[in-house]
């Protein structure tokens, strides 16, 4: 059995930032990440990030991940385990971990005074005829193939979803030399940032708002996709179909917070559409209704890496503070972070996030 002050579950930007903040405060920290690499979603992001310079704006995603990992390594009191998934949190506060090594899977147990959960998000899928044909991928899979394994998913892609992820992956496909036949979205407006939309559009990729995918066809793999315009209730309108000869459909219709561990441990949960699904209730320091469980990043509500990092830092500082670790600049830093978070959620695009947070605070 291992013992630690703070266990951080998830090694994405939120978890890494939480581990850095707790490490800085002097707590013993164990950071576990299910994948072989730390960095979470950042590992696959080759584009420059938005946000402010404090959260590494204009730096490419994978470089931000590297910087955070280097910062974690500075602290001797922060231990990290990769390829290690947290399976469950038990009533007596013990967390079970599964560690994959080359030869075998090892089960480990750890007892932590406080747990910070930054497990990120899961992809949504979409029901339509033949949606299981080979050639139909989720957005995450396309990114993993291209940016981790350097494999093109196919020759010609139809992107379903014009949120930031759909727009960014379309751009990355173009950069990899894959043709993008079009981007469709059932909403009447583009959901992602317009600067992203414009940069793809000016490379000749049409964007069809108000369309949904109705059918995929092909013998052994995808050969053709049919889209149709939708009415006010998002139902396809007969006679408005358009066909695309494509060998890849990339489904990028949003993410939902990964909430399993919160349910299991018994945090009070709330369904909040603006945050992407069920999320734990928490106070402004990201402490849930169970005082030794914190949440940060996309598992607290689908947002951005910039806010995930700030939330991770807040959770890490606050959790250490509550365990009695003295960090001189605590008050100053935490106020600054809270303000940064508020700033990131300003503006028109931040409205739904602000609405969402009003529903989960306590």
């Amino acid at each position, binding site marked *: 059995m291992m013992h630690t002050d703070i266990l951080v579950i998830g090694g994405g930007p939120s978890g890494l930032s939480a581990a850095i903040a707790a490490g800085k405060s002097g707590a013993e920290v164990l950071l576990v990440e299910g994948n072989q690499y730390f960095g979470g979603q950042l590992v696959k992001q080759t584009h420059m990030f*938005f*946000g*402010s310079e404090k959260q590494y704006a204009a730096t490419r995603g994978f470089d931000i991940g590297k910087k955070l990992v280097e910062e974690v390594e500075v602290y001797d009191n922060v231990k990290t385990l990769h390829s290690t998934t947290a399976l469950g949190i038990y009533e007596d506060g013990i967390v079970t971990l599964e560690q994959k090594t080359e030869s075998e899977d090892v089960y480990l147990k750890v007892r932590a005074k406080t747990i910070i959960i930054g497990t990120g998000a899961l992809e949504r899928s979409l029901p339509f005829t033949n949606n299981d044909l080979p050639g139909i991928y989720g957005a995450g899979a396309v990114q993993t193939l291209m940016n981790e394994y350097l494999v093109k998913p196919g020759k010609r892609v139809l992107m379903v979803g014009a949120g930031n992820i759909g727009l960014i992956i379309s751009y990355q496909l*173009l950069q990899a030399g894959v043709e993008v036949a079009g981007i469709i979205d059932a909403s009447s407006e583009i959901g992602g940032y317009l600067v992203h939309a414009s940069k793809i559009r*000016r490379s000749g990729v049409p964007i069809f708002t108000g369309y949904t995918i109705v059918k995929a066809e092909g013998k052994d793999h995808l050969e053709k996709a049919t889209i149709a315009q939708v009415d006010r209730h998002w139902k396809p309108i007969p006679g408005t179909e358009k066909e695309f000869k494509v060998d890849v459909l990339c489904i990028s219709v949003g993410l939902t917070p990964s909430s399993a561990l919160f349910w299991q441990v018994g945090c009070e949960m709330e369904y909040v559409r603006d945050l992407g699904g069920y999320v734990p209730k928490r106070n402004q320091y990201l402490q849930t209704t169970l005082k030794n469980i914190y949440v940060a990043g996309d598992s607290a509500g689908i947002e951005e890496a910039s806010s995930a990092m700030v939330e991770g830092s807040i959770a890490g500082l606050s959790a250490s503070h509550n365990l009695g670790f003295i960090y001189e600049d605590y008050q100053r830093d935490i106020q600054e972070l809270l303000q940064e978070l508020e700033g990131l959620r300003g503006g028109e695009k931040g409205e739904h996030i602000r609405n969402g947070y009003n529903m989960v605070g306590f």
Partner: protein
Amino acid sequence: MLKTTGVPNDQDLDGVFPPQERLGKGPVVVVECFETIPCNPCYTACHFGGIEAFKDITDLPTIDFEKCNGCTLCISNCPGLAIMVIDYQYHKDYVKMTIPYEFFPLPKEGEWVKGLDRRGEVVINVQVILVKNAKHQDKTPLISIAVPKAHFKKLRNIEVGDSNDQS
């Protein structure tokens, strides 16, 4: 239009292009950023006060066309690739347009490439004047092209060779 197709219309563009009088005074920035998103690296890149300080991170960039000297530094710092610099005085018939371009292969100086509009449609072939790909640009190369004055408000992208396919 912009919100449904990603293509800004003339009105949108008129709002961000410098006045003709300023164009006559040498290179200057054009920032096509129309939406209040949490982003400010254009401002932090500029050493000359050409982009006014952001009060909130979600502010739209406000350009001080008198202070901007067209140095091009902000172009590769913008994650939205929303910035270009135009030099209307470059030649009596041509504008020098400097745009970000993140595709392979990069064009060569002197090469003719397709000049594309904001929908990606070919307007006219243009010649590449300069290709800059310095380390501080962090993989966002800058391409300068000579654009006939009649078309300079239309062009915003280029296409190199027949395709980007390397395989």
